[in-house]
């Protein structure tokens, strides 16, 4: 956003001729389209996919949070078209199929979780034995799972996406399908990178340096890569939120259009059908619709047809959410946990980020500087089941860098305040605030109820595109000629984090 200081005209108002397509045929058209991909974006995408592929293949099965239950969800959906039963708290018989249970026992892939001295199976003889047993399994061995698991309440969209990879590799063994699903999932990180590129383009007049900085921040953030290269809907959430942010800003910047509204509503619906956390997007989407409508209808009344179309679209989306069960998860969360008191919540928020005051009742089990622990340490550098850690000093450096980036982004907005699109800024700010407050409310209620926090830094990764914009703004505060060099330093630092974290994975599981 800092790059906006150099934008002398509103990019949304400009019209640029599109290069003619060189060939009328489908393949030629595709080639022409691909040739239009900006070279920095193409290079970044290739780099991001290579890094993600390394994560996808190197991390042992199940060493991505909750991966076994997500695999089980995909398997039952792909095999039977049914979702797992909702979690009723009853005994969990046959959560996993016979095939998955055999793979679990044979590869020992779950034993290392939380036990740093334990390793997965290293014996080639065990691998060979598993292959023999797997090939002898009857077809029903893939379909006898599907009982309640902790992912069962999730809406089905991400799992349906993963079921494509599952079906495409159905002729092969379980681990081939598992890794194919990881690779398929990591493609969504590419979607997040592209959406962030476009988002930054909307806000900076397609300033390439700002676009590269913002999208690289999303694509090379180690937490985002690790989760996107596993079977976990949190990776899809990063992509979905990035697309919603792009489309929301686009609508605000370019003005109200049927296509723009439809695209935003569909993208929001997709996010809701991935995870119930996406309900936090609704206030922001309302802001985007309101701002763009206000700008479109300034001084004139909207036609009844336009209002009816908008209401019908939003209503259809609401029906789809209810039918899909996405709202059930939110309702279930709302019914769990203790009762919220405003005073208690504010006290908890203070204690989460600042030292306790003498008159405050301490929140049990809330670690000092919890915010740093969760958002910085857990968001940037603990992997697997939150047990693979970087050296403590690295987190301090990351924390300082995050503060510098946010401060740089804020400075960029302040300096460019005359040209900042406050509607777009409000849209992004409401999205971020609703998510953070929503997560805190959920956690506060968990503390009241069970004195346990289940909050993870990865839940905040959906805001990475905003972090990317802040990085672009911070780079905008660097003298213009030094900006590419500064961006180069950032890229190297993020690549270094990735390489060392992959090294930690090797040391943890294979040595």
């Amino acid at each position, binding site marked *: 956003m800092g790059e906006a200081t150099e934008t002398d005209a509103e990019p949304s108002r400009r019209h640029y001729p599109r290069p003619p397509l060189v060939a009328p045929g489908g393949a030629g058209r595709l080639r022409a389209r691909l040739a239009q991909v900006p070279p920095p974006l193409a290079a970044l995408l290739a780099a991001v996919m290579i890094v993600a592929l390394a994560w996808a293949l190197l991390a042992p099965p199940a060493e991505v949070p909750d991966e076994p239950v997500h695999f089980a969800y995909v398997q039952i959906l792909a095999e039977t078209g049914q979702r797992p039963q909702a979690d009723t708290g009853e005994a969990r018989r046959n959560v996993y199929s016979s095939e998955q249970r055999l793979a679990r026992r044979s590869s020992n892939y779950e034993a290392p979780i939380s036990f740093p001295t*334990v390793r997965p199976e290293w014996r080639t003889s065990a691998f060979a034995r598993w292959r023999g047993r797997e090939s002898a399994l009857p077809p029903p061995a893939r379909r006898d799972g599907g009982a309640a698991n902790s992912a069962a309440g999730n809406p089905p969209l991400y799992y349906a996406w993963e079921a494509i990879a599952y079906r495409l590799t159905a002729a092969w063994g379980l681990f081939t399908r598992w890794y194919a699903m990881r690779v398929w999932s990591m493609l969504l990180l590419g979607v997040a990178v592209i959406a962030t590129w476009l988002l930054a383009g909307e806000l900076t007049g397609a300033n*390439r340096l700002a676009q590269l900085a913002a999208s690289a921040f999303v694509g090379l953030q180690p937490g985002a890569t690790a989760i996107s290269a596993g079977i976990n809907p949190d990776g899809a959430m990063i992509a979905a939120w990035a697309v919603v942010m792009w489309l929301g800003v686009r609508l605000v910047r370019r003005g109200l259009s049927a296509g723009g509204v439809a695209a935003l509503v569909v993208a929001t619906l997709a996010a809701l059908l991935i995870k119930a956390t996406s309900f936090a997007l609704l206030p922001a989407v309302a802001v985007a619709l309101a701002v763009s409508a206000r700008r479109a209808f300034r001084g004139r009344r909207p036609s009844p047809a336009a209002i009816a179309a908008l209401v019908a679209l939003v209503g259809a989306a609401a029906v789809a959410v209810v039918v899909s069960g996405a709202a059930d998860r939110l309702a279930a969360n709302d019914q769990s946990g203790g009762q919220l008191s405003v005073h208690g919540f504010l006290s908890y928020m203070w204690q989460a980020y600042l030292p306790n005051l003498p008159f405050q009742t301490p929140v049990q089990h809330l670690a000092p500087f919890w915010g740093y622990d969760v958002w910085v340490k857990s968001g940037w550098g603990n992997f697997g089941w939150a047990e693979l850690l970087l050296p403590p000093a690295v987190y301090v450096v990351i924390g300082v860098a995050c503060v510098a980036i946010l401060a740089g982004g804020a400075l960029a907005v302040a300096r460019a305040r005359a040209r900042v699109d406050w509607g777009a800024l409000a849209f992004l700010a409401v999205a971020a605030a609703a998510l953070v407050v929503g997560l805190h409310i959920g956690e506060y209620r968990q503390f009241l109820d069970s004195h346990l926090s289940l909050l993870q830094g990865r839940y905040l990764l959906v805001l990475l595109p905003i972090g990317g914009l802040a990085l672009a703004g911070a780079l905008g505060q660097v003298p213009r000629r030094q900006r590419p060099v500064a961006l180069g330093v950032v890229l190297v630092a993020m690549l270094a984090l990735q390489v060392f974290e992959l090294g930690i994975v090797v*040391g943890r599981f294979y040595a």
Partner: protein
Amino acid sequence: MRSRAGAVVGVGAVVIVVAAVVALLLDQRELAFTNGVAPGEEVVRLKPQLNACQRNVQVLAPFATIRLATDSHHRPGPLLRLTVLERRSGRVLGGGTVPAGYVTRLDAPQDQISGFVGRVKAKRAIDVCVTNVGGQAVALGGTLESRPENSDLTAGIRRARPVPGNLALSFLKPKPSSLLAELPAALRRAALFHPSFVGAWTFWVLAALLAVVVPLLLARAVTAVGDEGTGPAPPDA
């Protein structure tokens, strides 16, 4: 300026590779292998003079020290004797003790104790026996779940009886070696339980891509940004 930005990425990549090699060299590893059992549960309560034997453990690499998970119940733990027997012949291959006085808990994974048993060669099956030669009980940790690939556990004094579950055992090398030296073996292990076309070579290729191709791509991206300028440009299609 754009060439400087590309050079920064290039130099940075060289620094990353050198730092990674140094880190791998300095990371000394003592683990030879484990029997893959998580130590979260109490499997056997070893009263004085009682022993527990984990049968038919496959020795994947030479070792000289055995590490095990115990719970001394907030008191100093008793002296334990460790014996390594060849599975087929019953011949004693090694032995040693864990001195008394340790205070351990099963819910603290770092609390494990170890005893030197002498060098034992690889590629054989062994039984590992733990005998309580102290005056009070100690719990041995492992998991109660049985795995088809795992060995059997017995416990008793003279007549050993089968016990459900398995002990969590780690076997440590005679001499630590660097992670760099162990990297070829580590990548061979990483290739197990993957699609059949994935091998250790896949990870070597990925390492090369990370070390060379990714930095080149990032350098190209940042250089291309320089080529196109940092000012406004037409919005994307």
